[in-house]
């Protein structure tokens, strides 16, 4: 059989189709290679690459600039340095961005390594240290500060906070008592009821704190939000979801950016099986890791298509944090691994590591949940003991604890 080359036009349509599919395959291979090399040169000068959380012209932006100017002239100006550090620390809380903690630390550079810094600098240093989970370093400074000034309410507050995180309730009780002696009003009530609400007296704490809130006048929205969030938690520990929701809604109605409130409310809605509301609530908060985790959880529960994209984004962020060698968000990472990736073993390892450092109710919860998923009662031992000795009432945690105890040892 002989083939004339002039016969080619008769098979033209076929070869063109073949060429097209061949070309497509080649292009796909090419794209795969290019996609790895993601850096690009934007074509348009007007392309917006990044949004800054603080605009230079905002009042806070102007104040920061002014204070930085003062310090640039005179780095030893303690007043300006403390003011700047405080401003940055507040920003870290509002935006949830640890960068600002670094900026605050930089403002305190002349006093950072001094063995005997001025009192206010020492307290600020302790606050910044605890943020990076250097609890012992922070506690040393707070010990020294409260020795120097028995009525330093700020130092007592932070001592209480750290002792609460470490589940050292006896020490926290001492701190709250000392705080009460400084006449810090709602602050002292907040301290003792937070402690009571965690350790089995949620009903009483709820009564006391809501009474104190009703009597207080002229308190800021931020404080109200804090009190209402705690009241909601206390309601939940009594199994009163309806009342908790009322508190959450009252706090949300104050319309202040507060990630802690949003995270707590999102967790509440997730526990109530209302993921669609979480998706609506957190849609615009993807920049915050803590809230993105809740959003992804809700999207997965609701079966929304965006879930995969957000799970990938979280994975990338946890991987980036791992490169850095941080162990700051093991609790979140454990929850991510358990509920979104289904990696129970890794989740349990992370939850156990986290429990060594942090022992708040939410740390106990992820530990118990991960241990239950792995059917490993022994791994949850620390959490179960805490549940027993603290007297913590949360019905959900108690249920998980019961299921764990029902496991064969």
């Amino acid at each position: 059989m002989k083939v004339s080359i002039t016969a080619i036009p008769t098979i033209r349509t076929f070869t063109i189709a073949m060429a097209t599919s061949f070309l497509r395959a080649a292009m796909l291979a090419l794209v795969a290679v290019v996609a790895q090399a993601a850096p690009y040169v934007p074509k348009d000068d007007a392309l917006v690459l990044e949004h800054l959380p603080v605009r230079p012209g905002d009042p806070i932006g102007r104040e920061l600039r002014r204070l930085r100017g003062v310090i640039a002239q005179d780095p030893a100006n303690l007043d300006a340095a403390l003011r700047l550090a405080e401003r940055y620390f507040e920003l870290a809380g509002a935006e949830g961005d640890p960068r600002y903690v670094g900026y605050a630390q930089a403002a305190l550079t002349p006093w950072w390594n001094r063995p005997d810094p001025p009192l206010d600098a020492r307290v600020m240093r302790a606050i910044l240290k605890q943020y990076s989970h250097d609890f012992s370093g922070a506690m040393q400074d707070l010990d020294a500060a409260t020795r120097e000034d028995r009525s330093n309410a700020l130092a007592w507050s932070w001592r209480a906070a750290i002792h609460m995180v470490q589940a050292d309730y006896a020490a926290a009780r001492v701190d709250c008592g000392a705080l009460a002696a400084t006449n810090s009003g709602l602050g002292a009530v907040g301290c003792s009821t937070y402690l009571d609400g965690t350790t089995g007296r949620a009903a009483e704490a709820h009564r006391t704190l809501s009474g104190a809130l009703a009597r207080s006048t002229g308190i800021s929205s931020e404080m109200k939000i804090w009190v209402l969030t705690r009241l909601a938690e206390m309601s939940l520990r009594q199994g009163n979801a309806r009342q908790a929701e009322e508190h959450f809604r009252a706090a949300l109605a104050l319309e202040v950016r507060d990630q802690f409130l949003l995270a707590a409310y999102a967790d509440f809605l997730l526990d109530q099986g209302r993921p669609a509301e979480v998706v609506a609530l957190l849609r615009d908060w993807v920049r915050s890791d803590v809230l993105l985790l809740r959003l992804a959880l809700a999207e997965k529960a609701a079966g929304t298509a965006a879930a995969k994209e957000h799970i990938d984004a979280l994975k990338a962020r946890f991987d980036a944090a791992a490169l850095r060698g941080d162990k700051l968000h093991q609790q979140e990472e454990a929850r991510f691994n358990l509920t979104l990736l289904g990696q129970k073993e890794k989740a349990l390892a992370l939850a156990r590591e986290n429990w060594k450092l942090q022992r708040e109710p939410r740390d106990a919860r992820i530990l118990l949940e991960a241990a239950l998923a792995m059917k490993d009662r022994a791994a949850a031992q620390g959490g179960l003991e805490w549940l027993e000795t603290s007297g913590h009432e949360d019905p959900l945690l108690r249920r998980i604890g019961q299921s764990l105890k029902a496991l064969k040892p």
Partner: protein
Amino acid sequence: MKTLVALLLALAASGALAHKPSDSYLAIRVAGADVTGQWDIALRDLDFAIGLDDSGDGEITWGEVKAHRADIAAYALARLKVRLGGTDCPLHSTEFLIDDHSDGAYSIMRFEGRCPAEVETLEVSYSLFADLDPQHKGLLRLEHAAGTRTGIFSPERATQSFELAKISALTQFLDYSREGVWHIWIGFDHILFLLSLLLPAVLTLEGGRWQGVERFPPAFWEVFKIVTSFTLAHSITLSLAALGVIALPSRLVESAIAISVVLAALNNLYPMVRGRRWIVAFAFGLIHGFGFASVLKDLGLPQGALLIALVGFNVGVEGGQLAIVSAFLPLAYALRATWFYRRLVFAGGSLAISVIASIWLVERALNMKLITS
């Protein structure tokens, strides 16, 4: 009242890590005395350090970043020291891009430099943002033929040394061979060129019609001649270009390679060169050699082991080529007499190849226009 605000923060602060902290990603690649690298720095951090938001609207645009390219390079490179035995290896920026990391947009600065001698112990000092944000960290990935190392820089660990173990000549040879195989495997243009020349090897042209060859030996020797001359030719130019004896602009080379594929494929459909296809293979092989050389250059040539790298890479390319040929030849020989081979594979395949290569040609040429305009 301030106390309570503090308390609220205190009692809510744990678990407050809503964002990734500030990190930069530094990749350094060392080959011989040459240092190349890429440094990814968050635009937010750069804005804090040197101010990028010229319009003050809270948004950083590409135009604003572009206007500050020189400032960024000067600021960053002043805070990175790469040393060999106490002597600086001066670095300068070569390229500037943007990338989106999981926590926002980063400026990507590529840089290169040269150490006074081949590097065995590299000392890296990193002080970016140390004065502004003591919690900032620099995450280093140090690549060397002997392996990849990582390091985390912080103000407490601002200077670190990395022993770059001497690698054996064999390891180096194998590394470059592997790169050679990989390159021929992903280098569609080289494969298509070779295939265009090999497709007719199992056929003969008689009176304007293609026919299957009678016996295997002639087909084998035809393939052998083509592959050998292609190899010989590209080895020559690969060596000359890699050693810096001849240099051609890469756009020209890439376009010429596309033309060579078009012509080789068209020659199957409208035969001009008959029989002596090995001459075509040799002539165009010279051009393909320049293409291989640019890849080798990107890989970085170790000054101390130039020959090893060159030979290793070449051996890899030949090995990859041989694998393709040995898969092709028996199959083509077995199918040579069929309608499927002669019409679909030979005629159709050649047409398809010429179409693809023509598109490559247009693309590579267009690319040139885009860049020069």
